[in-house]
Each structure stands twice: as structure tokens, then as C-alpha cells.
């Protein structure tokens, strides 16, 4: 598989599964990390699709 292809699903740009592997370790609340990652993902994803649908 091409390592540059991240295959984001709707609402994603860089899937959480990719980011999770990049942490050396997770010592605390993983769900908190995930929720904040995905929150910004949604906003940024909207920008990509807004250029197509809105602008």
C-alpha cells in the first residue's frame, strides 16, 4: 500500500488511526486525545469540501 495514501473517510483528513500510531506512548486519557483530534479534523475537512461545494 502506498504509505502516502491515508484513505480518509468522510469528515477526516488524517485518520485518528494514523495519528495514534505516531504517539510514542499514551499515558493518559486516549479518548480525550482522540476527541480533540477529530474535532479539528471535521473543521479542516469542511474547508477542503467547501472549496468544491461552496467556493
Amino acid at each position: 500500500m502506498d504509505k502516502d495514501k491515508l484513505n480518509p473517510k468522510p469528515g477526516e483528513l488524517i485518520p485518528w488511526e494514523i495519528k495514534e500510531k505516531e504517539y510514542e506512548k499514551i499515558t493518559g486519557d486516549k479518548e480525550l486525545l482522540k476527541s480533540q483530534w477529530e474535532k479539528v479534523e471535521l473543521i479542516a475537512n469542511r474547508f477542503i469540501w467547501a472549496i468544491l461545494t461552496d467556493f
Partner: protein
Amino acid sequence: MVEDMEKKYRDSFNRYIKAMKNEKPDRVPMRVLAAEFVAKYSGYTVQEVTYDYNKAYEATALCAKDFMWDAANPNQIYEWGGLIDHFGQKYYKLPGRELPPNIGFQYIEPVDEEGAYMKEDEYDRLIENPTEFLANVWIPRISSQLTDVGEPNTYRNNMTWLKGGIALMDYVQSFRYAFGLFKKSGCAFALSGILKAPFDILADKLRGFRQVSYDVYRQPEKVLAACEALTPYLYQNAIYTADPEGKLPVGLWLHRGTLFSEDMYKKFFWPTLKEILIQLYKEGHQTLWYGEGDWQRWLKYTAELPDGCIIYHVDKEDIFEAQKALGDKFCISGGIPNDLLAFGAPSEVKEYCSKVIKTIGKDGGYILDASAIMQSDARIENVKAMTEATLEYGVY
């Protein structure tokens, strides 16, 4: 006066919502989608309202107050020049730049394969992952300021991506100011959210109309697969921007479906669009079906949608035929011809509005609006006549 406007806002909002459910409110609501007209009325140039979104909001709110509209889009021009200048989309000509200050923006259609923003051999790449295709191929190609993936990076490239995102955030945050203005003007927002048909995305922005007209013959399986691949992403984009309370409809702007044969419409345009509309409705969101042009040939397909799924907006089709086919299922809006607003006399406008109100709006489930987005050609006295007709004939 503030108290009156707060009551006016509540009454307008409730009237609008009730009509969209195909019910009978206290009177016919006016939900007017007005673009360059608001600049003319308010004394701004079109460049001013295209580049300064606050002026667009103020101009629309003034129109909403003076014409007693119940709902409107705060900036129907929408294509903010600030974002476009920073991000560099090649496909726009804007007032004050390429165009004279009082001409509305123009979208420049690709006319051949060389100009197409998605090439004929790139369907597989789009289908494999639409988001990656947009970010890595299409967006760099449509911007005059971005570098292609694989080319040496530049400062300008980095700053363009940054500023594009920042510009969109700035624009979205400005809606708060618009909402305050509208509340003081006693007018509700008309819509929340955006949807385009998957086939329209191919025909408008990716391949262009001319190229996709070849594609449906030369590689129909790829066109179908592309529409199917786009579907979940366009759905997600719509639901992310939709009203969290599910009261305001998502705006669906339909373009090319009228330009193809029935076989083509049934095969390429309709199935994925229908799927998205039904799913949105299952999640509690109505959609404003804003078909530009004449969608009369496809009324029987639109009738396949569940009752209440859409608000059906009438442009060039016969509104009385649309009512017969769809009136029991959906609220109808629009149908007041733009050429009447541009060239008719106020008495003619009032007469036609009263005819529509008394037939289409007889039992509720009708929202008054022009057939197409109101531009500078609409005469002020005729827009006033629309309001007079509604207040005189539209009270239940």
C-alpha cells in the same frame, strides 16, 4: 420597536417553519433569495457586497426589514471575494477585478479537456479517495497560487493553504453578526447547510459540462462509480453544515440535471441524489430543492421522495403542474418569474402573485419567492408589489 421586531422575528420564523412542513400558517411566508438586488436597493456596488460580507449582511437585512421578508439568506452572493483572492481560484471573475464593479461574479466553465480541472483518466483516483484527490490534485490545479504535489514547495503555497482555511473560519464566524442584524430586522435565516448532487459536482467543478457529456458515453461505469464514491462525502458535508435543531432546511443547488435525456437522468443524476436526500430526512433534515431551470420532466422522480423530505422550489417549470404532481407531498416555493420582476409593471406582479397565492397557497404549504435568485434586474417597485400582494391576499 425592538420588542415589535423580536415578535416579528418569532412570528416570521414560526410561519416559515410551518409552511415548510406543508401546513397552513397565519399567512403565506416570504422567503426571498436576493443577491445583487440587495446592493442596488442599499446603494452599494456589487463589488462592495462581494468583497465586504458585512455590507452584504447589512444590505440584505435592510431589504428584509423594508420588504417584511420572513426569511432570507444573509449573503446570497455568498462567494466572498476575500477568500477567493487569498486562495486563488482560477474559475472566478469578480466585480472590481476582471468585471465592472456592478456586474455579479462569473464562474468560468472549462470548455475542453485541456481546461478541465479533473482529467478524463483521473476517475480512478477520484473514486479511490475523493478527499485525497481534492487535496492532492484538484485544489492545487484550480488555484493560481498553489504548487502541485511533488513540485518544490514554496512560501506562497504554504501561506495560501493557511489563509484559505483562516478565511473560511473568518467568514463562518461573521454569521454571528449577520444573525444579530437579521433578528433586529425581524427576519429568519432561510437555510443551514449545503448540498450538491454528485453528478453536478462532476459537471460543474470537476470535469465541466462539455467533458462530462463525453464521459457518460465513453466511460459510463466510471461516471457512475464517481457519483457513488462522492455520495458519502457530500452527505457528510451537508450534515456537518445542517441546522443542529433540524428546523432550517439544507440548501440543495441543482444545475445540470435538466440538460440530459431521461435515460441519463435516471442512470447518472437521480439515484445518488435520492439516496442523500432520504438519508438527510431520516436524520431530521429537510432540504430546499432549488432546481435552476426547468425540472418539470423529472417531477415523477422527485415524487419518489418521502412526504416532507424537501421544499420544492419552482424556477422555469409550470408551478401549477408542480403543485399537481407534488403539492400533497411537499411545500412549494418560488414561481414568481424574474423577467416579470424585471420588465413587468407592479400591477402585473401583484396580479400574478395573487393568482399563485390563491391557487398554490390556498391550503398552506406555499412560500413566496422569485423563481431564481434575485439580481440587479429586479425593479424595486416590483419587489415591493410582491410584499403588497402577500399581505393583501396571503393571510389565511
